[in-house]
């Protein structure tokens, strides 16, 4: 909407802040500008009421003083115009709504079930030997003990499971029939799982590779 350039003079005129020539110029203008005259009479009525009726501000005197204390808040709110604050608020509300509602439409969280590869506690199971390439078929397999009454499940692989057994020691000698299956020059790996006396899986070692050299 186009506004008249004299509109800014309305308050100054009504509050007597224009000099004589400024007043005369503005008076001549509102004799010729219906829009300015309409605004002038409206404003005059409001200012007249405000001037005569201080009671509308009674609750004001205190906030005006308090406003100085809360000047930082005003400066913060002055950063945006009211319309911009409304838009920012709407955007924030939309974001909150999206973040709140979206999880409701997600798939149900997965149910974690322990299988043979999972551990209940974070105990680590360290393999001691063999962990590097060796010159002949290993006579035994050894790992760090996790305490008494533990049962260990030892698995040896050559791409697929070659042999699996359980023991309560932390050292295992290979039977001859298994040794016979292990051929020089081939690559093997082994892994140990520890179980509590109640049969709960406690720890799983990493799968370590070794090669039997010629």
């Amino acid at each position, binding site marked *: 909407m186009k506004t008249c350039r004299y509109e800014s003079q309305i*308050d100054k005129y009504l509050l007597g802040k224009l000099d004589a020539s400024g007043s*005369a110029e503005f008076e001549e203008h509102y004799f010729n500008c219906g829009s300015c005259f309409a605004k002038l009479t409206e404003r005059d009525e409001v200012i007249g009421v405000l001037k005569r009726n201080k009671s*509308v*501000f009674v609750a*004001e005197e205190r906030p005006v003083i308090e*406003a100085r204390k809360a*000047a930082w808040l*005003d400066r913060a709110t002055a950063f945006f115009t*009211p319309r911009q604050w409304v838009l920012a608020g709407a955007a924030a509300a939309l974001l909150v709504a999206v973040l709140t509602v979206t999880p409701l439409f997600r798939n149900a969280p997965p149910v974690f079930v322990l299988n043979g590869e999972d551990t209940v506690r974070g105990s680590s199971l360290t393999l001691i030997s063999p962990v590097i390439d060796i010159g002949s078929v290993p006579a035994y397999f050894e790992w760090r003990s996790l305490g008494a009454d533990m049962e260990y499940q030892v698995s040896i692989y050559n791409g697929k499971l070659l042999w699996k057994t359980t023991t309560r020691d932390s050292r295992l000698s290979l039977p001859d029939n298994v040794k016979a299956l292990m051929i020089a020059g081939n690559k093997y790996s082994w892994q140990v799982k520890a179980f509590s006396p109640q049969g709960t899986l406690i720890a799983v070692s990493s799968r370590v590779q070794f090669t039997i050299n010629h």
Partner: protein
Amino acid sequence: MTENKTGVDLDELVLKYRPVVSFRVRKALGGATPDWEDVADEIITQVIEKVRKGEFRGESSIGTFIYTITSRRIVDHIREKTKILRHAPEPAPFPDPGEMVEAQERAARISEAVKGLKPKFREVLYLYYYKELPREEVAKQLGIPPRRVSERVNYALKLIKKDMKR
């Protein structure tokens, strides 16, 4: 429709300019001055006569023509009054009761509208209109930029106007 030889519609002229002339006279003489309405009527009559006599030749706008007559008549009236007041006291105003009731109702509605404003709008009206502080001083007191003062004043006036229309 009453027209003269210059083509000015006098009925329309009176309808349009009586409020403007009245406002200017009331502003100059003060609303409490009892004869401001008489002065305004005299001015309108004078304008009509001058237009009928062809004194308005269209060299300026009709608004400027009426403004000039109004200003001169106000000055004359003040001069006359100054002479009279040396000898006799000003009579007490005798306002129209109907107009007074209407004005009071409107004033009450404006007051209610102002009271219903948020404190930040009331305080800016208080400092700017009641205390008549300059915009920059209001801005300083409220800790906001000067342009924000103007925005708040204008917005408060819009809200009052909107409330008045309900």
